[in-house]
């Protein structure tokens, strides 16, 4: 029972072979002919941005989802469409990003939960503890078996999660963003454990989007983008820049570049490309000075960012997701408290104003998550088109139904929202049309500054072009636009200047002419940084 990792097939054989996996959720195609090949006895990194389809692929592997098409083989057996219990029985263990532990029980109780040792019809606590201690010793995952989960640090809790899957006989371990919650020493400890498991014959699949980690720990890499598998690489033969390009770029043909940017090497203090201000002496529409945003766990999510945007200018922010872009935009919109720094819109200080006052000052905002923030899904299109503007569509406290309907008619026509019926709930629209509703609302009103966060995420090709042309029109009309996008192409196609965010700071701000995918890639992975900030 306490088991193991040792009983795997001989190294070199395929532990996991997924081919042509298709999986759609409604209109969203999470996986499109995705493939994954993992050999027994290797640490395999599955990388890609949020929404690239990594989690869906792993859910299919773990039996939580059934593929619409494609095949899944584990240890040479075709197991397409199996159930979670089949997967567990076959030795697949998934460690989720959010721990599934009972916080009032002890470590040992959690680990044996569901397979409790029993003597005389009663739970055999001492055997549970000794089993867990034995497993802990074998694997090097050190935990105190009799402590309560509630008393553990996050790193310790994660070890318990791993032990739990091993206790159930897992030989193929899937870890979903295991380092997101860990401190650097804890990460190093985790690497040691994973290597040890691998050396004992275990197979490990690691989901992450931190490229330095990929280079550190993995033997092989699969890169996913927009539901497809775009590259399978041997870690020894690649560089972070190549991986980054595969992750975010349109062009996945990997030209071999000098390994100068490999991570871990000393960061070149490149002072080269200082942002050269575009030729314009208009006063800035948006001024941000030394903005600091502190996250829930006390970490600095935005760490002293300073920039300004002029009327008629698009500043694009590139960067691997999770480097503070979301927090920056939410802080600018007034949705997240600011630790220090200041924000001015058209010269007006708005740092301590609430969302509504900032909107009044001329701020429009296309939020990155339209389902959570941008729309009230059960409200009609007409009602959604006045969200945030409800005061100006009311007189003496009562909503002006006629004006709301007229407004909807105008916007639906102007932004080609389909189907063009203002009474339908927003929920019933396709993703692209939902986004058009958000954009119609935010760009159809009077504004001077637009925050556009992932404006084309999950949107079909036609709508993407439409949205891009709208953003260009806004620039033409003298609006200041902050564009945050995971699509490097989008940032390069639309922006006048490009900033790269890395670990909460602007690693650089470049005029778009100097920003190539290669250059940005190096800043994105932290191999280069300009600013002293």
């Amino acid at each position, binding site marked *: 029972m306490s088991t193991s990792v040792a009983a795997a097939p001989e190294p070199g054989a395929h532990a996991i072979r997924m081919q042509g996996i298709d999986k759609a959720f409604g209109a969203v195609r999470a996986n499109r002919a995705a493939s994954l090949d993992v050999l027994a006895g290797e640490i395999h990194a599955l990388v890609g941005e949020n929404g690239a389809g990594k989690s869906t692929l792993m859910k299919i592997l773990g039996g939580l989802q059934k593929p619409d098409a494609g095949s899944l083989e584990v240890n040479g057996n075709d197991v397409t469409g199996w159930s979670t219990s089949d997967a567990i029985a076959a030795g697949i263990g998934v460690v989720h990003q959010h721990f599934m532990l009972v916080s009032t029980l002890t470590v040992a109780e959690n680990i044996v939960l569901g397979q409790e040792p029993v003597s005389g019809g009663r739970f055999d606590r001492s055997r549970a503890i000794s089993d867990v201690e034995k497993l802990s010793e074998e694997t090097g995952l050190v935990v105190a078996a009799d402590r309560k989960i509630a008393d553990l640090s996050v790193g310790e809790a994660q070890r318990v999660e791993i032990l739990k899957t091993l206790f159930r006989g897992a030989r193929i371990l899937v870890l979903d963003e295991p380092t997101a919650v860990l401190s650097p020493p804890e990460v190093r400890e985790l690497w040691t454990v994973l290597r040890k498991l691998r050396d004992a014959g275990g197979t490990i699949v690691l989901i992450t989007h931190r490229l330095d980690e990929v280079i550190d720990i993995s033997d092989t890499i699969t890169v996913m983008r927009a539901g497809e598998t775009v590259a399978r690489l041997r870690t020894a033969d690649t560089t972070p820049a190549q991986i980054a390009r595969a992750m975010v770029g349109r062009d996945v043909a990997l030209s071999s570049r000098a390994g100068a940017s490999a991570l871990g090497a000393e960061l070149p203090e490149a002072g080269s490309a200082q942002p050269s201000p575009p030729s314009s002496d208009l006063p800035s529409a948006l001024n941000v000075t030394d903005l600091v945003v502190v996250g829930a766990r006390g970490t600095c999510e935005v760490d002293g960012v300073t920039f300004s945007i002029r009327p008629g200018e698009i500043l694009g922010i590139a960067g691997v997701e999770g480097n503070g872009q979301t927090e920056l935009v939410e802080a600018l919109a007034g949705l997240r408290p600011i630790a220090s720094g200041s924000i001015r819109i058209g010269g007006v200080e708005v740092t301590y104003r609430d969302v509504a006052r900032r909107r009044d000052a001329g701020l429009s905002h296309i939020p990155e998550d339209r389902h959570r923030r941008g*729309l009230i899904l059960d409200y009609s299109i007409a009602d959604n088109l006045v969200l945030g503007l409800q005061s100006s569509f009311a007189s003496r406290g009562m909503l002006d139904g006629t004006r709301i309907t007229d407004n909807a008619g105008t916007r639906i026509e102007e932004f080609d929202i389909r189907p063009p019926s203002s*009474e339908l709930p927003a929920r019933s629209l396709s993703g692209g049309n939902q986004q058009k509703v958000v954009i119609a609302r935010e760009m159809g009103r009077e504004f001077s500054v637009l925050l556009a966060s992932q404006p084309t995420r999950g949107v079909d090709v036609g709508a993407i072009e439409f949205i891009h042309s709208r953003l260009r029109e806004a620039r033409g009309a003298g609006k200041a636009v902050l564009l945050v996008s995971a699509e490097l192409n989008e940032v390069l196609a639309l922006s006048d200047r490009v900033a790269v965010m890395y670990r909460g700071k602007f690693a650089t701000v470049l005029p778009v002419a100097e920003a190539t995918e290669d250059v940005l890639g190096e800043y994105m992975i932290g191999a280069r940084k300009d600013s002293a900030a």
Partner: protein
Amino acid sequence: MTTGLREKLEEALFPPVVALLIALVCGDLLILSYGQSPAMVYRLLLEGTWGNAYGFGQVLYKATTLTFTGLAVSMGIRAGLFNVGAESQLAAGGFLAAMAGLAVSPGMPGILAIPICMVAAAVGGGIVGAIPGFLKVKFGAHEVIVTIMLNFVVLALLNWAIATHLNVPETLHTTEISSGRLPRVESFIGAFHGSAANLTLIVALLVAVAVWFYLFRSRQGYELRAVGLQPDAAEYGGIRVGKIWFRAMVLSGAIAGLGGINYVLGYKYYYEEGFAGGSGFLGIAVALVGRNHPLGVVLAALFFATLSQGGLAIHAFVPKQMVEVLQGVVILAVAMSVPEVRRALRQARRPAAA
């Protein structure tokens, strides 16, 4: 547009109807288990309620209080809050209405005294609603816990005040108010003689209409429903979620509190310990069955009032607790049938649409 309206109506009406049918079947089985004829018992139930003026008056009286508490709970749910405190809000409203009625000069004309007592009732309920609202916004205390606990606290305080200071000796009620009384229906329509129905029922209907306007036609209602559906999106839209929550709890409490006038100004003319009698809690069921829509709440209030009054009419043949079982079945059936029936409706429509 017209089909959209039809679909909406179907989705609103089918679940309660299905729930009612399920309850009827359960009722049949229960009645049969007592060796009685379901047809006879149901006939008695209807004759004792809608079949004669007195019974109908009693139904109207009970439905009036339930309309207030049902609207109060709905108002909370529309803002994403579960107000379990309508019971004590109702009691506090009745209490302050009686205090106001006793405080104004006995000769004050009704046109002045009645509004004063009504405002007092709304204020009483509003204060009891404001406490959980404040604690939620300020400290994140869950409104369900606070309202449940506050029920005990408020009811005990009122009990203490009545039992020790304000009662007529040997009773648990205050002295009667003389100004501020609302006329009974019997004074206009003789047939209602003896029933407690009074003009509060007009107030209840007006409040239902006002709540509908507030929720679906006012800016504040737009914001309140937005917060209830998606607080993150509401916040994004510049709506201050905490402010809306507080306001919704105050309004919810005030509506429940206003319900206190039905008993105090319209029926007994005094505050009596325990007059709320579970109407606050039944308001949760009324809101649920009425789908949190003012019209639905009025209909659901009539339905629950009918069951409750009908229990007295059938008592000779089956225990009157049977109707309480039926109430429970209806609540469960509605809770289950809402999503299920909707899904079935949509399924049935799909081939036609395609």
